[in-house]
Every structure is written in C-alpha cells, then in structure tokens.
C-alpha cells in the first residue's frame, strides 16, 4: 500500500517538479526514484515463492566451502510489514537444520529469530548487524534482506550498455542505520528493470564489492528471478557464488508458516 501511495504522490508531484526550474540534482533524483519504484512495482504481487540455493565460498587461494539452503519468501502486505523469509541450512552437516526467520519492515529494524537444532532452541536475535557477513560469505545481511525501496534514496547517474543491452545506472544511498555502505551503484536493464550489477562502496567510500546477477528467467508470466549471483570482494580477494534452483511460486505459504513457533519443525 505504502509503495502505491509513494507512487501516487510522485505522479502528482512529478509534473510540478518538471515545470519548476529543475536543478539537475532533483531531476536525477526523480529519475532514480522512478526507476527503483518501477522495478519494485514490476515484481509486486508475486505472493510467495520457494527456492533452493547452493552457496560456494572461495578464498584468495581458491579453496572452497559450500552451503546448501532452502528459502521461502512471503510477500509483505500493507502497512509497515515487509517480506517474511525462512532460510534453512541443510549443509554443511554441522549446521544442518539451522533456520533463520526474518520479518522485515519497510522502515526500521527487522525482527529475526534463529533456530538452533542441536538444542531445539528458538532464539530472537538482534537485527542491528545489517553489515554482518551472512553465513561467513561475502554477502552481508543487508544485501539479501533489505531490498525494500523506501530503505534508500536514489539518483540516476547515466545510461550505458551492460551485457549487450541498454541499462540505467542508479546510485542509491541506504537511509537505515547500521549499513556498511556509503552508497551503491545499481545497473537496471531498460528492457525489464532487472538488477544486473551492484557495486558496493564501504564506509570510506572505497569500492568494496561487486555483485553480478545473471540467468534471469520469468515465472508466472511476470516475475523475473536470477539463477546466479556472484559477489566479489575486491579488498580481500574472496568471492561467493549463489546458484538459485527449483523456484516455485504460489506454493500456498501463509503468515502462519512464518510464525516463530513453527521454526522447530521447519523443513
């Protein structure tokens, strides 16, 4: 609901802003916002989906370690509720069954619980640590869960070709607390508004990581999902590859499946 409100306000204010002696900064901000909200709008209404993910961590010496997990996501409703997600690890064996439940919020801190199968314990954890490494990988929590459009301010920088197609290049700045980034540069393809690449700049505003996303396929005639995400850390030489498989939409998930009291039997 909120995202439609914002769009509505933009639609009303857009012409006014155009008529005013537009400063280039405002113009680029508007264009950036429009692109980001259009990307969000195009994926709205997915309802829920499930997928399996294999994650390969590589260090500088190219030695690898692997994680396997299943992911379930329920789209957020109206109000402040963002998406809800369940991530259950099946490999490595010593953390098999460990499950992370996130109730994200469009603004403000998410609610997070972790299930520890060895002692069958559900523990509420702090979600302040958005910049922390997810499962020891090069992905931070904020790279995976904080994708609500209201969590950034935007500025369109330029258009350029990427991966043989025209793309918008938009800079976004996190407005939430505890981010590890001063800014991110995002490439959206013009054809479908899918994110193709993100560059992450650290707190010293130096290039930290680059994420390349590829292998998009369309589900339910509308929702694009990527097959591969490769995150390279330029400062450490480490990288993480996520391979997404077995996407399923309209799986019949509902709010109750994301209740913390269901974690002990998560599958």
């Amino acid at each position, binding site marked *: 609901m909120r995202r439609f409100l914002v769009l509505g306000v933009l639609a009303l204010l857009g012409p006014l802003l155009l008529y005013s002696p537009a400063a280039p900064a405002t113009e680029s901000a508007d264009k950036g916002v429009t692109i980001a909200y259009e990307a969000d709008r195009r994926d709205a209404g997915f309802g829920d989906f499930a997928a399996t993910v294999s994650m390969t961590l590589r260090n500088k010496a190219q030695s690898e370690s692997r994680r396997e997990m299943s992911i379930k996501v329920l789209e957020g409703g109206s109000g402040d509720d963002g998406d809800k997600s369940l991530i259950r690890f099946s490999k*490595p*064996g010593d953390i098999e069954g460990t499950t992370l439940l996130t109730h994200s919020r469009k603004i403000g801190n998410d609610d997070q619980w972790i299930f520890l199968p060895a002692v069958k314990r559900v523990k509420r*954890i702090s979600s302040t640590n958005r910049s922390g490494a997810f499962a020891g990988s090069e992905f931070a929590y904020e790279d995976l869960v904080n994708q609500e459009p209201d969590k950034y301010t935007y500025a369109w920088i330029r258009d350029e070709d990427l991966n043989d197609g025209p793309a918008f290049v938009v800079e976004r700045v996190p407005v939430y607390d*505890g981010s590890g980034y001063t800014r991110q540069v995002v490439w959206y393809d013009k054809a479908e508004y899918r994110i193709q690449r993100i560059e992450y700049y650290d707190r010293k505003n130096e290039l930290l990581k680059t994420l390349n996303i590829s292998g998009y396929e369309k589900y339910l005639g509308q929702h694009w999902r990527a097959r591969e995400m490769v995150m390279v850390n330029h400062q450490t030489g480490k990288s993480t590859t996520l391979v997404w498989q077995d996407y399923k939409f309209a799986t019949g998930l509902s709010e109750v499946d994301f209740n913390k009291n269901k974690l002990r039997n998560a*599958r």
Partner: protein
Amino acid sequence: MRGVCQTRVGNRRRLRRTLGRAARIVIKSAHQSVAVTRFRVTRLLPFFLMLAALAAPGAAGAVPVTVSGYAAAEVRFFPGDPADSAQKSGRLSPSLALQPEFRAEWNGGRDRALIRPFLRLDGDDAERTHADLREAYWLRDQGSWEVLTGLGRVFWGVTESRHLVDIVNQTDLVEHLDEEDKLGQPMVNLTLFQSFGAVSLFVLPGFRERTFPGRRARFRGALPIASDEPVFESPARRRRIDFAARWSNAFGAWDVGATLFHGTGREPRLVPSLDGGGAPVLVPHYDIISQAGLDIQYTRENWLWKLEALGRRGNGKRFAAMVAGFEYTLFGLFGPVDLSILAEYLRDGRGAAAPATSADDDLFGALRLTFNNASSTTALIGATVDRSSGGAVLRFEAQHRLSDTWSLGVEAWGFTGIPASDTALAGIRRDDFVQVRLQRSF
C-alpha cells in the same frame, strides 16, 4: 639371543593381554548398550507401532527418507584426582557418539516423521555407555494447528547460564554436566496458532528418570548415586501422566512466554541412604510438582534483555526462582568478528527439602567471540560465581569447522573455591577437565 627372544615373546604376551582387555571392554560396552537399548525400545514400542501405522500409507507411495547426522570421538583429560578415592583417577577418558537422523514427509509436507537415535560408547563409565531415542515422532501440520505424537524434544526459555523454565524433557546428565542434553519425552502435543499467540498443550505419558554417572565415574555426586532404586511420590511411578502448557507470542521487540507444568518433577532430590551392602549412597526421590514459568526477552539494537522466572510447589515449601540478565554485542569489533558480553544474575529461593541447586545466589558473566568466517569459528569464556561462598565454575568453549564434513570442539571446565559443604557441586569440585571433540557430519 635367547634372552632377546624371550623378551619379544614376553612383549607379545603383554600386548595380547592388553588387546584382550581392550576387546573385552568394547564387548562389555556394546553388550550393555544393547541391553539398555532393548530396555528402552521395549517401553517405547507402542509409539513405534503407532508411527509405523501412520507412516504406512505414505510408505506405499515410496516416501523418500532423508538421512543426516554425525559421528564423534571425544577425549576428556582430567588433570586432578577425583573428590572420592573410590572414583577412578584416570587422566584420559575416551568415548564415541553416534547420532543419525531420519526424516520423511508426505501429503505435501503436511505429515512429517523424524527419528533421531543416539548412542554413546564410553571407555570408562558403563552408565555413560547408553542409547536413547532423542526424537521419534509424527507431526501433522494443518497450518493453524499441529499435533506432534511420539518422542519429542521441547525447549523453553531465553537465558544462557541456566535453563530454569525448561522442564518437559529429562536431563541426560550422564552426557554432560552442562545439562544441555535431554532424553526423548513421550508426548502428544497440540499447538494452536492464534491471533493472540501460540498455545501449546502437552500430555506426557511416561516419565524418564535422570541419568547419573556410575559409582566410580567422574561428575558423580558426593556419594555414589543409586539410580536403579528411585523413589517416586506418585504411586503410578514411571507411568504417571503429566501435563504441560505454554503460551507464547512476540509483540514488537518483546518475546513473551508463559508455561505451566503439573506432574513428576524432572529434578530429583538426592537423599542419603544405605545400599544393600550397607554402603552410603544417594537415592533419587521424584516429587510431584506444580510449576508456573515466565520467559521474556526484549530485543533492542545491540541489546538482548532476558528474564526467566518460576514459582513451584511440591518440593517442600513453595518457592520462586529467577535468572535475569543481558547479552550485548559489539558487531564488527575487528573486521567481521563480533564480541558479545553476557551477564546474568541467578536467584533461587528453594528450601532444604527441595532438590539441591548451585544457582541460589550467583552471578554469571561471559564473553563470546563470533568470527563470522567460513569455518563458523566461535569461542566463549565465562564464569558462574556463588555470591555467598565465592566458589566459581569456569568455562571455556570453542568450535571450528575444519572442512565441509569435519568439525572440532574444545571445552575446558574448572572449579575453584567450592566448599565441601556445597551439596550440588562438592562431588565434582575436583573434576576440572579439558575435552576435545572431533565430529564428522553426514
């Protein structure tokens, strides 16, 4: 020449004797574990038949079974002699553990079954050589409600130094003195997911006695524990049906749970007595208790504020107990490494007629390092100090994944300044130890 030959023969004989003894120990351990398994499985047979019956229609459609689990080798090193000269004073104590897990689901995941047996073979303590079914249940998940039938494991609570309100499962104390290991509890558990929270109701048919180390083993009480001759307040003894209930919900930053339990208390009183041979022993007495518990966590930014409290009657005079404290995390202290500071205060008002506890008026403090690396390395160092006696239990724990299948755990416990009059800890005050554990997951 002859001399050399005789020496060799002698060596060989000694070797053969040693090997023979080792083999006998292994056979004896295996024998005991089989006996234990048979005993427990027989009692749990109805549950298995029920599970099998329920699983049968699913099995007809060839339900895939997922197998995972671990095998682990452990060595404990004791630098000192035990408190009682009757206990074994060996320095090194090896053991093996195996815990496979079998999972299946059918009806699109609406029905799920899980079986998780556990086996421990201990080089020193025949009581610690034991088998158990940690879990063996069938779950019907209807979305807004679910029913779990079989042997289950339930955890209640939020604090770290003591799991005060966690009562459904009996402690498998012979596994570890940290009381984190629990025996599978027979149960029928209905959970209703409502707008006002989740309500979970438990019928608990069948009581599991606490396991205790053997007469000559480490971590024993001040006297040998006659665990074969328990005394029950309930005339139904192990067949009493107990009841429990829990409501829990999350309100923004608050996670709140309230629990009730009525039945045979899981903590026994250890009553001094004489065994058949006239030797002094401690006999476990199990009282019928009623208990109300509360657990609250308030999570805000880097802080977790925690409270567990209970009121109980049935163990002598009615009493209250609580654990309260916080966990504060400094994220990214250096690089990706997080440092958590944990502090809790423990208070227990129980009288002399209740099971002894060391947590009557204690402070707990700990530091935990989480490395957030590919090996998921963590380390914790902490202490629980008794405010009246000054006695302290010190603890160090670290885990590190060596590869995708192997992991290593190191643990060290120390006891200092514990007076011989401390009924809960006196028997283990000389059992400082270091444990190394190598685990292979599959």
